[in-house]
């Protein structure tokens, strides 16, 4: 099926976004970091078990501000993808990220997160080391960190593993990314006992940037021009830079205690009952 045919049908439209979010040549956290920040100093390891390359943490400069950057990385080449565990973090990745959050608060640096994961890794070792617990703790750290947090969903927003990095003061989403409670394939195999019905599930789950903007969960959607990939991303990077810059100008003026309060009001205000 060609892309044009798909565009005519809404069912396939959501599914096309999912496929687009997973494309190998889609820009990843490292591509954005290279374009947006300078003087990047990467912070490694969780000081407990190891270093998880599926989550990058770094300190760097953004337009005269020192910022903390946290990004989920899937990898482009096969070798890199294996090192990054295909973007599926283990508990040590989230622990490293919590270190970065604590230091951001200590030094008054804003935090910029790039979300791109099919999900936290579902494995025996991950469970034994408390995958659920670290995501819970990471959410709590994001909820209470006394510094501005901006998150950008750049590709796959897969369930709890993505949500951990999405509890932010400002949530931005790329046009062809998705954010969902479960993968369309997982949803289809549970509900319809048939994972080939993923296209229909993708539509029902309302997981596109457009849907999330409508629910007011996402604050801003960045457009992707035709032919957008990691070699042709400058236009969108300019938009992201402007968006981050505007948000930081606003958020950095809010006192540290008040920022947590505002975050709380934002999320608890989403009553939906």
């Amino acid at each position, binding site marked *: 099926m060609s892309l044009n045919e798909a565009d005519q049908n809404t069912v396939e439209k959501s599914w096309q976004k999912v496929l687009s979010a997973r494309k190998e040549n889609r820009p990843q956290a490292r591509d954005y970091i290279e374009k947006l920040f300078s003087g990047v100093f990467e912070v490694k390891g969780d000081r407990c078990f190891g270093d998880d390359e599926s989550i990058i943490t770094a300190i760097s400069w953004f337009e005269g501000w020192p910022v903390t950057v946290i990004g989920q990385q899937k990898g482009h080449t096969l070798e890199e993808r294996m090192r990054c565990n295909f973007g599926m973090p283990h508990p040590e990745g989230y622990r490293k990220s919590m270190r970065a959050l604590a230091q951001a608060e200590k030094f008054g640096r804003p935090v910029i997160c790039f979300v791109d994961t099919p999900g936290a890794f579902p494995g025996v070792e991950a469970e034994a080391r408390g995958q659920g617990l670290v995501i*819970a703790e990471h*959410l709590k750290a994001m*909820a209470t960190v006394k510094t501005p947090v901006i998150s950008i969903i750049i590709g796959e927003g897969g*369930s*709890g593993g993505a949500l951990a990095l999405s509890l932010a003061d400002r949530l931005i989403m790329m046009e062809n990314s998705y954010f969902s409670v479960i993968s369309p394939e997982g949803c289809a195999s549970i509900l319809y006992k048939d994972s080939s019905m993923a296209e229909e599930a993708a539509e029902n789950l309302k997981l596109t940037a457009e849907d999330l903007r409508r629910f007011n*969960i996402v604050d801003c959607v960045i457009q992707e021009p035709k032919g957008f990939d990691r070699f042709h991303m400058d236009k969108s990077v300019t938009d992201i830079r402007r968006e981050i810059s505007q948000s930081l100008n606003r958020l950095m003026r809010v006192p540290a205690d008040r920022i947590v309060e505002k975050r709380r009001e934002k999320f608890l205000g989403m009553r939906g009952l």
Partner: protein
Amino acid sequence: MKLFTEKIDTGISVKRKENTDVQKLHCSKCGKDIIADIVHANDSICPYCGALFRQPAYKRIEMIVDSGSFIEIEREAESKDPLSFPGYKTKIANEKTKSKLQEGVVIGKATIKGVRTALAVMDSYFMMGSMGTVVGEKIVIITEFATLNRLPLIIFCASGGARMQEGILSLLQMSRTTIALAQHGEQQLLHVNVLTHPTTGGVTASFAMQGDITIAEPGALIGFAGPRVIQQTVKDELPEGFQTAEYLYEHGLIDRIVDRRGLRDTLADVLALHVRPETQNVKTLIKEKVDDVFKRS
């Protein structure tokens, strides 16, 4: 006359229905099929082999709190269908009839051996205790209630995770409950979790793992990813007893495993240990608690 006949008819049909449609539960340990009411009258424990069945929320509350002390909040809250997800409305209606509940969690306040506490009890007989907007909102409401009234909060977790049919709005509840609980904690108030079978997915990855004290029931399945998903990923046999309460205890992820019939005593002890000196009548209260502990040991 017509009315009279109708009355009799209705009475009989209801009676027949009860007789032919007795709900039975299957014990996976000893293989027996037992009438649900009998199981639940026995604290939802198999009368033959002692295996634990999932316990309905109101039965749980009855077992844990002081008799007559429970006051429910937000009983009527019910799920809408925010995504217009195909089949969801029908599913909710069926679950309501089947479980006689409005949603997958019951919240309120009560006393346990005289100590006041806020309480949330999830019920896995309602859509496997999955967390949608209403479950999330009720957890937020009871947490805010506990914060405002300076009460400890006990949550009995039982959940298959975030509810698919409410999509991203279910996932959002992980953030919302976390934020509400963080505020509760900042006020130096106690949060105790009791993890019951099953506690998985988005609930494990949010409030179920954020307690000051975490207790679990024996044999309960507790984890982030479901065992089937893990097996498909690793393509290998899972270790024996993987993701059980005992496995988590061995890996240092929970504080204690407590048998269902010991939970009331354990929770009372934990609550008493966290009573602050500024609380009213604290001396008599503490004395009673200490006496109670010694009596039992």
